[in-house]
C-alpha cells in the first residue's frame, strides 16, 4: 500500500469574494508502516491538505493515489462527535466491528471509562478529543490521519497517548499522517517530517529519521531535536538528520 500525493495547487474562493491560494505544489509519497508528520505554521494549509488527501475536497489541481479499499481512521482537529449519540455509540457507529473487549481496552487507555454513556455535550474538550481518538483507533485503520490529536490534553496523558499511537503503528501495517505543532511529538513518532512554509504551503524540508521508532531513546531524540533546531536557524532545512 502506498499513498501518493501530488497536489499542484489549491485555491479557495471566499464568500466575500476574492481568492486565497492555500496550497502551492506539494508532492510526496508514504508507504505502509510509515509515519509522515506535517509541521507548519498555523493557517498554512495542513488541514486543507488532509481533506484533499482523504477525498473530502475534490476542488483542487493535482492527483491523489490512495489505496482504494483502505480503512481510514481520522482524528479531526475538532472532535466532530455526534452530539445526539453517547460516547460509546459514537465509537461503535464509526467502527461497527469493534469487539466489546477492544472497546473496553480503548476506553481504559484513554481514561474514558466513566464517560461511556455521556453525550458529547457533557464532556470537556479534552475528553471529547479522546473520544475522537478512540473512534479512530477502534476502526483498526489502514490509514490513520491525526490532525493535532494531542492538543488540549495534559502532558502526562499526552505522553501516554503518544506511546499508544506508537504501539498501534508498530502492531499493524498502518500508514499514518500526523499534523502537529509539537516538535517533540514529531520526533518521537515520525519517520519522515515535512516542514511546510506559511500559506500557500509547500514543503520546505523533508526530513527522514533513520533510527527506528522503538530504539529512539531520550538521548537520540534530544540529538535529533538539536540538529533540527540548528537547521531551522539556517532557515532552510535540507536533507536527512540522524
Amino acid at each position, binding site marked *: 500500500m502506498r499513498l501518493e500525493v501530488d497536489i499542484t495547487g489549491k485555491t479557495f474562493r471566499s464568500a466575500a469574494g476574492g481568492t486565497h491560494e492555500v496550497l502551492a505544489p506539494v508532492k510526496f509519497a508514504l508507504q505502509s508502516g510509515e509515519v509522515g508528520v506535517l509541521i507548519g505554521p498555523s493557517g498554512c494549509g495542513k488541514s486543507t491538505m488532509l481533506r484533499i488527501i482523504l477525498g473530502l475536497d475534490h476542488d483542487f489541481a493535482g492527483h491523489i493515489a490512495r489505496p482504494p479499499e483502505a480503512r*481510514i481512521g481520522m482524528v479531526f482537529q475538532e472532535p*466532530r462527535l455526534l452530539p445526539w449519540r453517547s460516547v460509546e455509540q459514537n465509537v461503535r457507529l*464509526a467502527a461497527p466491528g469493534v469487539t466489546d473487549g477492544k472497546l473496553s481496552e480503548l476506553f481504559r487507555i484513554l481514561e474514558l471509562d466513566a464517560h461511556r454513556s455521556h453525550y458529547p455535550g457533557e464532556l470537556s474538550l479534552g475528553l471529547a478529543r479522546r473520544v475522537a481518538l478512540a473512534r479512530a483507533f477502534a476502526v483498526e485503520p489502514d490509514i490513520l490521519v491525526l490532525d493535532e490529536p494531542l492538543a488540549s490534553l495534559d502532558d502526562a496523558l499526552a505522553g501516554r497517548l503518544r506511546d499508544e499511537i506508537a504501539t498501534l503503528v508498530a502492531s499493524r501495517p498502518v500508514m499514518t499522517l500526523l499534523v502537529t505543532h509539537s516538535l517533540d511529538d514529531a520526533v518521537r513518532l515520525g519517520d519522515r517530517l515535512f516542514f511546510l512554509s506559511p500559506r500557500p504551503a509547500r514543503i520546505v524540508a523533508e526530513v527522514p529519521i533513520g533510527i527506528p521508532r522503538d530504539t529512539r531513546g531520550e538521548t537520540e531524540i534530544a540529538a535529533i531535536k538539536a540538529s533540527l533546531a540548528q537547521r531551522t536557524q539556517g532557515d532552510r532545512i535540507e536533507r536527512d538528520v540522524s
Partner: protein
Amino acid sequence: MLRLLSFALFLVIWWIAAFLVGGAKLPSPPAVLQVMIAEASSGALFLHLGATLARVALAFTLAMSLGSAIGYLMGRVKLADRLGDPWLILLLNLPALVVIVLAYIWAGLTEAAAIAAIAINKLPTAIVTMREGTRALDRSLDEMASVFAMPRWRAFRHVVLPQLAPYIAASARSGLSLVWKIVLVAELLGRPNGVGFEIGVAFQLFDTPRLLAYSLTFAAVVLVIETLLVQPFEARANRWRPRAA
C-alpha cells in the same frame, strides 16, 4: 400536571366567555359535551371521526414522506432546487379548494381523489421545511461520516436525521394541523362522511354546539396522542440537548 391545569384553565375561560356572550354565540362546555356524548353513544361520532382519521393518517403519511424526501433532495442538490423551486412555489400557492376540485373532477368523487388532494396540499410545506433543514445541515459531520465510510443508511439515520429532527417536528405538527384543515374542505366538497361532512352539515344548520363538538373531538385526539406518545418520545430523543435554564 401543569398541562392539565392549563387545560382546565382553558375550559374555565371558555365557560365564562360562553356565559357572558350567551349560548347562541358561543355554546358552553356542557352544551358541547352533551352533543359529543349524544353523538358518541349513537356511534356517529366514531364513524365520522374514524373516517376522517383514516384519511388524515394516509394523506399525512404520504405527504410527509414524499415531501421530506423531495425537500431533502432539493436541500442537497442545487440543480434539483433550481428546477423544483418554481413548481414548489406554484404548488404552495395553489388554493386548497382548487386542488380538491380538480382532483375530484379528474379522479371522480373517490376516496383516492380526496386523499391525493389533501396530500398535495400538505406536500409543498413539507418540502419547504425539510429543504431549509437540509440546507442547515452540518457539513463537518458529513465529512466525518464519509471518512469513516459509514454506509449511506447508517449515516442518514445517525448523522443527518437527528439534525433534521426539529424540522421534522415542526413540519409534522403544523402539517397535521394543515391536513386536518384541508381534509375538512375535501369532505365538505365530496365525501359522504367524516368530520368535515358533519361540520358542513352543522354549518348549514348553524348548529354551533355540533360544530364545536366535532371540531374539538379531533383536537382532543391530537392532544391525547401528543401527551401520551409524541412528547415522551421527543423528550427521549432530545435527552442529549443541554437542559434549558
